[in-house]
């Protein structure tokens, strides 16, 4: 799947600005950012599920086929078969009045044309694959009778039912307890590897994304501000926002007390994320950035390749780069 300069606007509010991404088969891409950064909108773009009020521009290609602006019935052919999605709240995504078995078997019977017994066999195999113990009795249960982690596994099984080549997971672990979340992440990684299925893992949780993915895109205010190999970006972040985000995360080095006996403070990013329609025109991060220069608020920084696959959009990096080139 390939996204080239994809923008989504709701009136004057730009939810996504010229996003470029490339997802190779079988790879795992993480999208991180705070609330309102456009990461969910990006996920919906991949599914062709932008709300009607949103205006989409740019190019969305799936296996070389242009899908931007394609009508609903075209997208529907690709959903579930080529791209599937799982959501944050597994309870909300399951019909509470339907047995889990019926929920999982229905699409198999409808889309794949399987007989009831064949659909049942497939459902059992899928449950086995996503690590649901005792799948036979699970099929007869209702969603409220199983735990949150098990519900998320059911949804993953449901998403896998038509063998998609890309799975979009929007905050799949946010509603779960830490231990359960960890196991779900490991499951997604394993499925991606065994099925050669691409995974887009959307989350605000840096630790979860670090564990789940090989590539990462950091978003702020509708822009992808930095992307590259996960270890590279998280290990040596270049964009001021990524640096701030990593510093703000409580970890080992900012814990405990300093030499003066006072507790160590966390690195913070001043201010709060502005509403979409009040974002600065240039770099979205200007106004909160501590290293701001004059051109930041006015001019949009272009993505700059920094080597080793790392790309960041920041005027400071551009200057440093130009300076190094001149000397």
């Amino acid at each position, binding site marked *: 799947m390939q996204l080239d300069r994809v923008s989504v606007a*709701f*009136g004057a509010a730009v939810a996504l600005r010229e996003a470029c991404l490339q997802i190779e088969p079988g790879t795992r891409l993480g999208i991180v950012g705070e609330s309102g950064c456009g990461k969910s909108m990006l996920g919906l773009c991949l599914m062709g599920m932008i*709300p*009607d*009020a949103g205006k989409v521009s740019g190019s969305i290609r799936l296996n070389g086929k242009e899908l931007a602006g394609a009508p609903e019935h075209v997208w529907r052919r690709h959903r579930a078969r080529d791209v599937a999605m799982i959501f944050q709240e597994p309870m909300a995504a399951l019909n509470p009045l339907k047995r889990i078995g019926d929920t999982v078997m229905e699409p198999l019977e409808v889309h794949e044309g399987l007989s009831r017994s064949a659909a049942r066999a497939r459902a059992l195999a899928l449950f086995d694959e996503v690590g649901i113990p005792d799948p036979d009795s699970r099929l007869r249960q209702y969603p409220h009778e199983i735990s949150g982690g098990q519900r998320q596994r059911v949804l993953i099984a449901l998403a896998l039912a038509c063998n998609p080549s890309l799975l979009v997971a929007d905050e799949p672990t946010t509603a779960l307890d830490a231990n359960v979340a960890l196991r779900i992440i490991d499951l997604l990684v394993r499925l991606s590897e065994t099925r050669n299925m691409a995974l887009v893992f959307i989350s605000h949780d840096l630790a979860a994304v670090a564990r789940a993915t090989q590539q990462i895109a950091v978003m702020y205010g509708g822009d992808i501000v930095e992307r590259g190999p996960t270890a590279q970006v998280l290990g040596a972040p270049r964009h001021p926002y990524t640096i701030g985000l990593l510093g703000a995360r409580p970890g080992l080095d900012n814990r405990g007390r300093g030499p003066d006996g006072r507790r160590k403070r966390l690195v913070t990013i001043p201010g709060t994320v502005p509403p979409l329609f009040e974002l600065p025109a240039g770099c979205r991060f200007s106004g909160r950035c501590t290293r701001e220069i004059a051109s930041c608020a006015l001019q949009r920084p272009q993505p700059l390749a920094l080597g080793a696959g790392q790309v960041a959009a920041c005027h400071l990096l551009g200057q440093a780069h130009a300076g190094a080139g001149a000397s």
Partner: protein
Amino acid sequence: MARLVVRWPARLPVNLMIGALLVALVVGVAALSLIWTPHDHAAMTIRNRFQPADGVYWLGTDQLGRDIVSQLMVAARNSMTVALVAVLIGGSIGVALGLLASALGGWVEDLIMRVADIGFAFPALLFAIMLSAVFGPSLTIAVAAIAFINIPVFARVARASANQVWTRDFVAAARAAGHGRFAISRDHILPNIAAPVIVQGTIEFAVAILAEAALSYLGLGAQPPSPSWGRMLSEAQTLMFMAPHLAIYPGLCIVIAVLGFSLLGDGLRDITDPRLKRRRA
């Protein structure tokens, strides 16, 4: 101090606008009757009975030669007054009981709500007839009866909404601040249940107008010479074939008033109830 935070949708619902228009019409006419009517509503001129509509008597006169427009206008004022007083009294007592039930919980809540259930099951007209039989028919009795039947309605709405508000964190914060149940009910619960109570009040206003008309029709409401839509209807009934307009005009007034307040209530609910709020882009 407390402010009613209602986010007005970009487009107001149609039922709200029509309702508001009709209510404004009825209330405006009722208010106008305080200072001006085309004729004295009670002046009888037998010579001019059953006059057709013309430039002097806009809608004609009745069997006693009284001007119909003037009567309808004063009747509107009477109807509004009865409904307003009855809903205010019934609403205040009902909301107070609902808040009390919600604040105290346990057996007090059960007791209040079961009594309210019984009140709900009691037919309003029957109750009014019973009161009239004991105290004699009068407007006060009609008001009391209508107020009484409103109590359980408001108690239910208030308690249901209040119970939701009690689970909110800001109520826990007020408890942490050191406030007792009654202070919290006054400072936090009441302002936050205002919207559903006002919606209910508007709808109950329509019900009260209808109830007042029914009681007057039975001769248990406003007493002559004070005009009332309900009594105008009952008086016109015997003359139905001779002068149908005598029945049509008060009937139309009742329809307009009841419809207006019902639509207004529905519209208000549409814009204040978050569950019904449609997504706006």
